[in-house]
């Protein structure tokens, strides 16, 4: 006597071959690793002083280029080793997180707010406002940002705000283009027409009726941009156009260790790994949020 349940269980499992490629995406699992990583990064950026064993700027020429603790010759005094000047890499990584995330936050805030405002206004108002805004967007996206940033650096020297401005300059255009497309769709909806008929002013319609509906798009787009911002910051720092030394940033740390990568790979390797992991986590989170919040948003953001 075999119970029904056991019989079902014993039956050979022939997975039905899927013929139809379903359009409905499977509910994606919550990306725990990426969320955990994002949390760690956030804590590092908010309270670096509590976590870092040393000051990120302390030079100690005797302890130059010590390997990380997990390698032969390394010690737990410097868990991730030291760089040319004997500065503790772990401390520089932790304080560098603050630099990188500050750039992400400020440029997203500036570029996102400007882009969202212009995009929404363009989509809602239409006419010449829309035409002018969208041409400005096209021009902004066509400009070679990195080269222009380098040109400015050549003249006025590197600075935090230059990185932010270069980033925000591209961001505003990306946000404006996407938000305009969204608002054009919402503008035609009945509840907007009703609000208009009820005599609501345009500002109220935009803020109270349209903004809540495009908020998801804003969140998803912002998350998807984080990786790009970190890579751009890294490239600019790598070229000497990032946040000026000795302030630690991941890209600048990679640049410092580049010449000695043959004899001490960790000086460049560990910050490069930090960049890659953080970009990876933000891309995964962005994709997950997009599937959850705004599945219509596909393609290159």
């Amino acid at each position, binding site marked *: 006597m075999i119970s029904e349940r056991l019989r079902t269980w014993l039956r050979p499992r022939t997975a039905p071959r899927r013929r139809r490629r379903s359009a409905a995406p499977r509910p994606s699992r919550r990306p725990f690793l990426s969320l955990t990583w994002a949390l760690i990064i956030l804590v590092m950026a908010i309270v670096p002083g509590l976590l870092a064993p040393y000051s990120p700027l302390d030079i100690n020429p005797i302890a130059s280029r010590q390997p990380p603790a997990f390698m032969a010759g390394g010690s737990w005094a410097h868990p991730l080793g030291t760089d040319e000047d004997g500065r503790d890499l772990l401390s520089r990584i932790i304080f560098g997180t603050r630099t990188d995330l500050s750039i992400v936050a400020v440029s997203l805030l500036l570029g996102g707010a400007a882009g969202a405002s212009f995009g929404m206004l363009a989509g809602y108002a239409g006419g010449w406002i829309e035409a002018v805004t969208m041409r400005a967007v096209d*021009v902004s996206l066509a400009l070679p940002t990195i080269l222009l940033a380098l*040109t*400015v650096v050549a003249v006025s020297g590197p600075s935090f705000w230059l990185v932010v401005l270069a980033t925000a300059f591209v961001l505003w255009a990306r946000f404006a283009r996407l938000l305009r497309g969204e608002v054009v769709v919402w503008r035609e909806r009945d509840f907007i027409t009703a609000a208009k008929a009820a005599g609501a002013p345009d500002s109220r319609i935009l803020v109270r009726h349209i903004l809540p509906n495009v908020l998801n798009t804003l969140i998803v787009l912002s998350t998807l941009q984080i990786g790009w911002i970190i890579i751009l910051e890294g490239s600019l720092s790598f070229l000497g156009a990032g946040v000026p030394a000795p302030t630690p940033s991941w890209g600048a740390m*990679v640049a410092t260790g580049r010449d000695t990568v043959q004899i001490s790979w960790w000086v460049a390797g560990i910050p*490069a790994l930090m960049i*890659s992991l953080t970009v990876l986590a933000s891309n995964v989170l962005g994709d997950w949020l997009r599937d959850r919040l705004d599945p219509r948003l596909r*393609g290159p953001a």
Partner: protein
Amino acid sequence: MSRLLLARLAQTLLTLFTTVTFVFAAGHLSGNPADVILPMTTTPAERAAYIHLFGFDKPLYQQYAIYLGGVATGNFGDSITYRRPVLEIIIPRLFNTAKLAALALLITLVVGIPVGAAAAVWRGRWVDHLAMGTAVTGQSIPTFASAILLISVVSVWLRLLPASGMESWQSYILPAVTIAWFMAAGIVRLLRSSLLDVLDAEYIKIARAKGLSEAVVLWKHAFRNATIPLTTFVGLIFGIILTSAVTVEIVYNWPGIASLIYSSILHRDYPLTQAAVTATAAIIVLLNLGVDLLYIVLDPRVHL
């Protein structure tokens, strides 16, 4: 000539003009370019002579007009470090970058398209997971980091390929692969998602119901429509190549335009920087125009 074409041309000119103006403004942002160019030890008399020689004492609008005239006629003046006409230095460098970019683009398409298609066809299988895993990783590693990684492993450790310069054909491989890796990752993800959308369309079901082979359905029916979203990517591609090229050329010591711009900035060779940035930006803008025109030709729904 249609309105669409005219509007696109006008926009290209506007972009070019903005870039040129921006480069000029950047040079004059913080006062006199002579302060940037001249060393600290220059005497006031030398400084005055220099400023007069390069016309930096003229009113700003006149300098701007002269500069615009130079851009229009291709006369950018002499380089300070090389003491030769700037254009002579720029042109061979542009060709070196173009060779690298063309090879990178070729690798991107040859690898990216089959892999993206395979990931869509075998969705959810190991091929898909492997392709997407590699693509997401590829997009997460900035080119300056992957360049250092490739040099360390392939050149230093395995001693297979040269790490710098462009002496032989082997020197092309590493820099091109570095740029291509990042781009191919984008193509794979984009093509997979657009192919999945298309493969679900009604006309594909009909094609299958007619009894067409999977290969014909995929390449003749689905692929063409799936590549339409790719054109947005192609429109961005020259910008991406250039952004990658800046770091790649420096790491691999490639004598291209990007490394020239970088070294001109380090040496404070302002005329060279100005001209090289303007020329590069102009080429990108014109290439994008070319892509758009090609798009108009390829997509029958866009009428001329």
